[in-house]
């Protein structure tokens, strides 16, 4: 008598467990895919390279852009209190392509939807003091200063023309203290069926014109001077914004 009760109990439990397991397994796993597309602009219009078409923000002359690129790292997305962080999240954003844009796609994000996105402009201190290649970090690349100094976070190179005189303008901003965190709410209309498409603008003009307005004539180069580097970092902290 007892024994059959036990048997019955065990088999019922087994049936319930397996039924539950199968039902749960059959439920589709909710995951979301997100594409962030960054568009390089200068004051609202697509960035133009290699032509003297921009005014020196804080002084005389016009300037041209030869190179503009930066590291975006530690990308994470969140819904409420749930957060998903990309692994080895180090992206080199460069815009020397036809549509002046750079896309990053996160697939299989284990969230039903996403409300906010966050990232660092620059590289976190741990990765910045390592020579391990990960993500787009490469110690043999143009973005590496050398292993004692770390990575350049934001690179701008170009030239300033005043009258007939052309002189180089080189801003290489690094140092761990100059990484800047940014986060945004994702526009609600950017989500269709678990597929999120977000367009963002990267306004290079903000690098030269923010808390500090740059005169390229008096500041032709920024590299290891901590104050100059911090001024530019405070400016680039605002250069990315979602496009509506």
């Amino acid at each position, binding site marked *: 008598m007892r024994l059959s009760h036990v048997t019955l109990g065990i088999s019922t439990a087994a049936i319930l467990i397996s039924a539950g397991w199968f039902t749960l397994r059959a439920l589709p796993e909710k995951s979301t895919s997100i594409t962030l597309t960054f568009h390089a602009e200068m004051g609202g219009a697509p960035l133009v*390279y*290699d032509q003297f078409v921009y005014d020196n923000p804080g002084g005389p002359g016009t300037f041209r852009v*030869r190179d503009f690129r930066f590291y975006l790292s530690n990308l994470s997305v969140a819904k409420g209190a749930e957060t998903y962080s990309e692994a080895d999240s180090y992206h*080199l954003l*460069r815009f*020397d392509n036809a549509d002046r844009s750079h896309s990053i796609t996160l697939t299989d994000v284990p969230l039903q939807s996403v409300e906010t996105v966050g990232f660092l402009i620059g590289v976190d201190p741990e990765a910045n003091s390592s*020579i*391990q*290649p990960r993500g787009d970090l*490469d*110690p*043999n*690349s*143009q973005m*590496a*200063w*050398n*292993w*004692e100094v770390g990575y350049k976070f934001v690179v701008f*190179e*170009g*030239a300033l023309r005043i009258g007939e005189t052309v*002189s*180089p*303008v*080189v801003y*290489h901003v690094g140092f761990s203290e100059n990484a800047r965190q940014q986060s945004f709410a994702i526009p609600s209309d950017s989500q269709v069926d678990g597929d999120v498409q977000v367009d963002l603008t990267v306004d290079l003009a903000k690098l030269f014109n923010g808390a500090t307005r740059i005169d390229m004539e008096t500041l*032709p*180069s920024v*590299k*290891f*001077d901590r104050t*100059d580097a911090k001024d530019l970092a405070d400016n680039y902290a605002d250069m990315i914004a979602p496009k509506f």
Partner: protein
Amino acid sequence: MFRVLLSLTAAALVFVAAWVVWDRARGPTATPIADFSAPFVFGRFSVPADNPLTQEAFALGRHLFYDPILSGNNTVSCASCHLQALAFTDGRAKSPALSGGVLEFSSMSLANLLWGQERFFWDGRATSLEEQALIPIQHPDEMDQDIDALMVELRASIKYRRMFRRAYGDVTAENTAKALATFMRMLISSDSKYDRYLRGKARLTAQEEHGRKLFMAHPDTKVSLRGGNCIDCHSQFLTSGFRDALDGFSNNGLDPDGTLPDGLMAVTGNSAHKGFFKVPTLRNIAVTAPYMHDGRFKTLEEVMDHYNDGIVVSDTLSPLILEADNAPDNGPDTIGLRMTPEEMAAIIAFLHTLTDEVFLTNPQLSNPFDGDT
């Protein structure tokens, strides 16, 4: 007794025949090159999926590389212009042309081609080593060989038929290119004093260490940092140009606009690339004189003089070169690093730590026909 002998001979014959048939019929053996390692500081590399590194391909590639059969008149091999003792350069400003005179460019060192730029030649016109390998063979002034005629010659050789079969299958132009590419990918130089220093196995002298620091620093007079800015173009561990996109090409101030050669512009059609050349590896640089794409500098001292105060301005000159200056009084006609003689000598001392005797004498990379009878 005779019968025993006869049947033994017959058995042996059958065995040999069967072996020969089997050896021909079976596919390539393809033993992956397992024991190959490279310092992790060299970073990532990729090998084409359809041409994995195998012992058989390496052996074949090595034979082809050293064999003058690859040229039209059977006198020139790849090694005629790429000598191991000279880090696979030829020690000349410009390589001799078959028709007399010289080629347009100086021969290039072949070392660590798995890393750095994924474009080959001074102007980057080849996008893979497989594509590159067939170019000198057919070039009328280099090896002047018709590819189909070469295939006929190679197929006539039992040895090459066997080596191709083991490595790939048939004797074809494509497989010739693949084998040469494999051999060149295995030309890895990672045993210089600098490498041993990076592995913690050697110490640099005070002068070499001073040179290393200058090599690795972009000068910034604002914070009294002195530097040679070499690292702006020659990467810190590989010392070659950068891999990403076209970052490994630049204009280092050799010629004025009027006589600036096309360089990379010939390939991309982009005028911003005029005068851009492949930033070469500096590994074994002490044995690869003369220097630059046209071999214009005979010594490392001349190279340093160029970077120090011989920079010629042109529109596409690297802004990093234009702007790098160790002297604070930035006059208009002082373009160059303006370092002291001691600093230049220190950089040259550091460059000498990049010489890798193991690489220059490694018997596995040497001429396989030497000692052959």
